[in-house]
C-alpha cells in the first residue's frame, strides 16, 4: 500500500498526468489509498484524506464512499476535522441521501457549542443541505440563536432561518416576531439577514405582509442613514455605503409598498432622494439606481417620481456600458404596457440598439421594438425591423419574422404596403417563417383584387432571382398559376412593365419543378400552377400537356397523382377544364387556425343545415364514428359541392381528397330540384308528439338519389325554428337544399319540405341519421332518428 500523499502533492500528481487515462490511474490509486485510510482507526491525516476525496469529486469522479467518513468527522472534537467534515457533508450529502439524517444530531450538538466557529459550521451546513425534517427538528434552536447570541451568530442564524422558511413554510410564524426585533440591530450583516428573512416571510404569507407594513418607517430610517451618512470604510464600495444592504431594503420596500397608498407615500421622499443623489458613474451606483427604479415603478408612486424613474431608464439606454443598456431595456419591457408614451419617447435609442453587436442586447431591443410599434410609427419602424431581419442572428430570425407579420397585420397603412412587407420578409427570412404564413399570404393576395397584377409581377421577378426560399416560391407559383394571364399582358400600373412571354413563365415553373432545392410541397404548387395556366394562356397548351404527362410517372406519389388527374382532365373531361380551373373567388377568413381556408371557395355559413364533410382520409375508418362526429357539428372545412365554385385541389390537403374533389364535382353537377309530392314511394320515419316526418326518394342516376323529407305538425301549437340535419356514411356524398320554411303551423295546415341529394358511387349500404330540432311553446325539442333502409322504385 502506497503511503498517503498530502493533498497538494496529489493535486500536483493529477495535474501532471498527460492523458486522461494516466489521470484516471492516479486517481484510482489515490482513492484506494483513501478508502484504506478510512477503514483504519483514528489517525492524524483524516482531514487530508477527506479533502483529497473532495478534490477528486470536483473533477467528476464518484466519491460516495466518503459519505460515512464525513459523518464520522463531523462528530469529531477536533475543529480541523469538523471543518472538512462539514465541507464534505455540503458537497457529498444532500437531502436525498440517507446518510444526511445521521448528522442531524451532530448539528444539534454543535449549534450549542461554546465556540462560535463550530456553531457557524453547523448553521452553514444546515442552511446548505438541511431537509424539511431536519429543519423542523432544529427550528427552535435557530430561533433561540436569533434572539440571544453575538452578531456573528445572529447573521448566520438569520439566513439559516430563511432556509428553514423556504423549506417548511409553516415555520414562518415562528420567526416573524424575532425578525421584527432584528431590525433594531446595528450590525450590517445582521440587518441584511433580517431584511432577507422579512422579505421571504412577506412573500409567502399576505397576513405577515400586512403586519410587516408597519416596519416601513424603520426601513426608511435605516436607508436614509446609509445614503446620507459619511464615509464608512468598512462598508464602502466606490462611494456607496453598503450597496448590498441598500438594494435589499429597496426590494423589501417594493414588496411592502405594492398596492398600498399609505406605505408608498411613506417612501416617496426617500426614493426621490436615492434616485437623485446616487452616483451613477460606476456599476455599483447603477445597481442601486436600478433597484430604485424598479421599486418606483412597482409601488403607487406619484407621477413626478415615475417620470424621474423613466428618465433614469432613458439615461441608462444611452450609457456606453452594454450591461446597463440591457438592464434598461429589460425594465422598459416591463412597463411598456402601462407607461407606453413614456417609453415611446426613447424609441429612437431602442431602435439603434437593434444594431448592437451583442446578441443579448439585440434580443431585448427586438422585443421592445415590437412592443412599441403603433399605427403612427409603423412605416419607419418597419423599415428598421426589416433592416434588422436581414442581418440578425439566426436564433432571432423566427421571432423577428413573426413579430413583423403581427405588426404588419395590425397596423398596415395600405394593402400594397402589407404585401410588399410580407414579400420582403419572405425573401430575407423565408426559411424561418411559420407554416401558416403561406396560406395567410395567399388569402391576403386573393382579397386585394386590384393589386393582382402588381403582386404577380413582383412575385415573378422574385422567383426568377431566387428559388431557394420555399415559402416564397410556393406563394409565387400559386400567384402565377392564378394570375398568369395578367403577367403575359405585360402592362401594370404600379410597376414598370416587363415583357413576359408564356414560354418564360412555363420555363420558370419548370425550373421550380425540376430543382433539387424544391420541397415536395413546392413542386406540388408548381405543377398545379402549370395546369391552371392551361386555361389562362393560349399558345403553349401542348407544352403544358406534355409536362403534365411526364409527371404521371414521377416517383413522388403526390405529384404522380396530381399529374394523372390533370391528364384525365385533359383527355376525358376537357369540356370541364375551364370550369374547374376558374379563378378563385374571395376567400373568407374563418379563423386563424383554418389553414385549409385556401381551398374552400364558399363560406359554410350560407347553408343552413350543416353540410357533411366528404372523404377526409384523416378520420378513423369507423362509419358510426363519422356519423357521431358529423352530428356533433365538427368544424372541419367543408368540400363545396356547388358547381358555381371552382374547386382546385389546394396544395396542403392530402392526396386522396384531390381525387375526391373531381369526383365530387361530377356528382354535384347533376341534381336538379324535383317538384314536391312526386309519385315516389314514401315512408314515415318519425312520428312523435304530433310532429311527423316522411321520406320519399327517387333515383336520379346510377348512384344518385333524391330524397325528400316532409314535415308536418298535428298539434295545436305553432312550431318554429324547425331544422333538420343529416349525416350519411363516409363514402356517400350529401347535399341538402334549402328547406321550404322553418315554421310548422298547427293542425297540419302547412308542411315543410327539404330536399336532400345523395350520391353513392361506391354503392355502400345507404343509411342516414337525421336530427330534428324545433321550438314549441317556448321550449326546444331535439330528436335523432336513424334510417337504415331507403324505399326505392
Amino acid at each position, binding site marked *: 500500500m502506497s503511503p498517503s500523499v498530502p493533498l497538494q502533492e496529489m*493535486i500536483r500528481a493529477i*495535474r501532471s498526468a498527460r492523458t486522461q487515462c494516466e489521470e484516471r490511474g492516479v486517481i484510482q490509486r489515490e482513492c484506494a489509498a483513501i478508502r484504506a485510510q478510512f477503514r483504519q482507526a483514528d489517525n492524524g491525516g483524516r482531514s487530508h484524506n477527506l*479533502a483529497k476525496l*473532495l478534490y477528486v469529486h*470536483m473533477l*467528476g469522479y464518484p466519491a460516495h464512499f466518503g459519505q460515512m467518513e464525513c459523518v464520522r468527522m463531523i462528530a469529531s*472534537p*477536533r*475543529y*480541523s476535522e469538523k*471543518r*472538512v467534515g462539514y*465541507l464534505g457533508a455540503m458537497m457529498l450529502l*444532500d437531502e*436525498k441521501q440517507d446518510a444526511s439524517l445521521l448528522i442531524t444530531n451532530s448539528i444539534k450538538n*454543535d449549534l*450549542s*457549542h*461554546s*465556540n462560535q*466557529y*463550530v456553531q457557524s459550521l453547523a*448553521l*452553514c451546513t444546515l*442552511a*446548505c443541505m438541511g431537509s424539511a425534517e431536519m429543519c423542523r427538528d432544529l427550528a427552535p434552536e435557530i430561533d433561540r440563536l436569533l434572539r440571544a447570541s453575538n452578531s456573528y451568530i445572529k*447573521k*448566520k442564524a438569520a*439566513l*439559516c432561518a*430563511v*432556509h428553514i422558511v*423556504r423549506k417548511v413554510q409553516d415555520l414562518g410564524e415562528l420567526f416573524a416576531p424575532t425578525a421584527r426585533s432584528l431590525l433594531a440591530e446595528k450590525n*450590517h*450583516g445582521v440587518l*441584511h*439577514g433580517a431584511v*432577507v428573512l422579512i422579505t421571504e416571510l412577506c412573500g409567502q404569507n399576505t397576513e405577515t405582509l400586512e403586519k410587516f407594513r408597519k416596519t416601513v418607517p424603520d426601513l426608511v430610517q435605516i436607508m436614509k442613514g446609509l445614503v446620507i451618512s459619511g464615509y464608512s470604510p*468598512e*462598508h464602502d*464600495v466606490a462611494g456607496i455605503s453598503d*450597496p*448590498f444592504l441598500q*438594494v435589499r431594503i429597496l*426590494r423589501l420596500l417594493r414588496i411592502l409598498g405594492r398596492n398600498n397608498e399609505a406605505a408608498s407615500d411613506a417612501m416617496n421622499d426617500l426614493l426621490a432622494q436615492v434616485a437623485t443623489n446616487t452616483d451613477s458613474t460606476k*456599476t*455599483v451606483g*447603477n*445597481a442601486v439606481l*436600478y*433597484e430604485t427604479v424598479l421599486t418606483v415603478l412597482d409601488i403607487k408612486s406619484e407621477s413626478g417620481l415615475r417620470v424621474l424613474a423613466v428618465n433614469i431608464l432613458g439615461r441608462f439606454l444611452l450609457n456606453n456600458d*452594454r*450591461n*446597463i443598456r440591457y*438592464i434598461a431595456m429589460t425594465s422598459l419591457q416591463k412597463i411598456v404596457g402601462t407607461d407606453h408614451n413614456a417609453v415611446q419617447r426613447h424609441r429612437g435609442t431602442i431602435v439603434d440598439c437593434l444594431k448592437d*453587436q*451583442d*446578441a*443579448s442586447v439585440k*434580443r431585448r431591443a427586438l422585443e421592445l421594438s415590437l412592443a412599441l410599434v403603433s399605427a403612427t410609427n409603423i412605416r419607419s419602424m418597419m423599415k428598421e425591423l426589416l433592416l434588422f431581419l436581414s442581418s440578425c442572428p439566426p436564433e432571432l430570425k423566427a421571432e423577428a419574422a413573426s413579430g413583423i407579420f403581427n405588426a404588419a397585420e395590425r397596423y398596415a397603412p395600405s394593402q400594397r404596403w402589407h404585401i410588399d412587407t410580407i414579400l420582403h420578409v419572405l425573401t430575407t427570412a423565408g426559411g424561418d417563417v411559420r407554416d401558416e404564413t403561406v396560406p395567410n399570404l395567399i388569402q391576403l393576395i386573393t382579397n386585394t383584387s386590384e393589386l393582382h397584377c402588381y403582386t404577380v409581377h413582383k412575385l415573378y421577378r422574385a422567383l426568377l432571382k431566387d428559388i431557394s426560399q420555399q415559402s416564397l416560391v410556393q406563394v409565387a407559383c400559386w400567384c402565377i398559376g392564378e394570375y398568369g394571364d395578367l403577367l403575359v399582358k405585360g402592362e401594370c400600373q404600379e410597376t414598370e412593365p416587363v415583357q413576359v412571354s408564356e414560354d418564360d413563365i412555363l420555363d420558370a415553373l419548370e425550373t421550380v419543378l425540376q430543382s433539387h432545392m424544391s420541397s415536395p410541397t413546392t413542386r406540388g404548387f408548381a405543377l398545379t400552377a402549370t395546369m391552371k395556366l392551361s386555361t389562362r394562356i393560349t399558345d403553349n397548351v401542348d407544352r403544358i400537356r406534355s409536362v403534365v404527362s411526364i409527371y404521371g410517372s414521377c416517383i413522388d406519389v403526390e405529384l404522380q397523382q396530381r399529374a394523372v388527374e390533370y391528364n384525365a382532365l385533359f383527355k376525358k373531361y376537357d369540356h370541364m377544364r375551364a370550369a374547374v380551373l376558374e379563378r378563385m373567388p374571395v376567400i373568407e377568413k374563418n379563423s386563424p387556425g383554418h389553414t385549409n381556408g385556401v381551398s374552400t371557395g364558399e363560406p359554410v355559413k350560407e347553408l343552413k343545415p350543416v353540410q357533411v364533410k366528404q372523404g377526409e382520409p384523416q378520420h378513423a375508418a369507423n362509419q358510426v364514428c363519422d356519423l357521431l362526429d358529423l352530428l356533433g357539428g365538427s368544424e372541419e372545412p367543408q368540400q363545396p359541392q356547388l358547381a358555381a365554385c371552382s374547386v382546385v385541389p389546394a396544395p396542403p390537403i392530402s392526396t386522396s381528397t384531390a381525387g375526391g374533389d373531381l369526383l365530387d364535382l361530377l356528382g354535384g353537377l347533376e341534381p336538379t330540384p324535383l317538384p314536391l309530392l312526386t309519385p315516389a314511394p314514401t315512408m314515415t320515419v318519425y312520428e312523435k308528439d304530433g310532429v311527423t316526418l316522411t321520406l320519399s326518394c327517387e333515383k336520379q342516376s346510377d348512384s344518385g338519389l333524391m330524397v325528400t323529407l316532409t314535415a308536418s305538425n298535428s298539434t295545436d301549437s305553432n312550431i318554429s325554428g324547425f331544422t333538420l340535419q343529416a349525416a350519411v356514411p363516409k363514402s356517400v356524398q350529401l347535399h341538402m337544399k334549402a328547406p321550404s320554411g322553418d315554421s310548422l303551423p298547427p293542425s297540419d295546415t302547412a308542411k315543410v319540405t327539404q330536399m336532400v341529394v345523395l350520391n353513392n358511387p361506391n354503392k355502400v349500404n345507404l343509411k342516414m341519421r337525421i336530427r330534428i330540432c324545433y321550438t314549441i311553446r317556448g321550449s326546444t325539442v331535439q330528436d335523432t332518428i336513424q334510417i337504415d333502409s331507403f324505399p326505392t322504385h
Partner: protein
Amino acid sequence: MIRFLLLFSRQGKLRLQKWFTPQADREKKKVIREMMTLVLARPPRTCNFLQWRDLKIVYKRYASLYFCAGLEDQDNELLALEVLHRYVELLDKYFGNVCELDIIFNFEKAYFILDEFMMEGEILETSKVAVGVAMEEADTLQETVEEYMSKPAY
C-alpha cells in the same frame, strides 16, 4: 437568491461549484456543461447577462477564470456583478494576489471563504473586514493545540 455559483477555467475545467438548492448529481453535471458551453462561447466585450431557462445568468471573467452565477427572476443583475467582484476581492485579500493556482491547490479554503461571505444564495456579510477577521480566527483555531481542550457544551 443565487441558485448556483460556478468557477471554471477557459479550458472547461471546473474549479469550484456551490449549489444553493438541492440537485441530483446528474442534473448538476448537465447544468455545468451547459453553463460552460454558453459562457465560453461568448465573444469578448459582450453583455455579462444571459437568459437561460427561467434563470438569469451573470458571468464575469477574471484572468483565466470565469465566475458564473445563476439568479432568480427578482434578483438584481448589476448587484450580482458586484457580488462576484466582492468574492474575488476576498480571495485576493486572503491569498495575496490570487491566481487560478491558488484556488486549485487550496480549494477548501476558497469554499470556507465563500461560506463566510454567502449562505442560502444570499449575502451573509457585507463588510470585507469582517470576513477576513472570521477566516483568520477560524484558521488559528484549526492550528492551535487549544482545539483538543475545547469540549462541546450540551
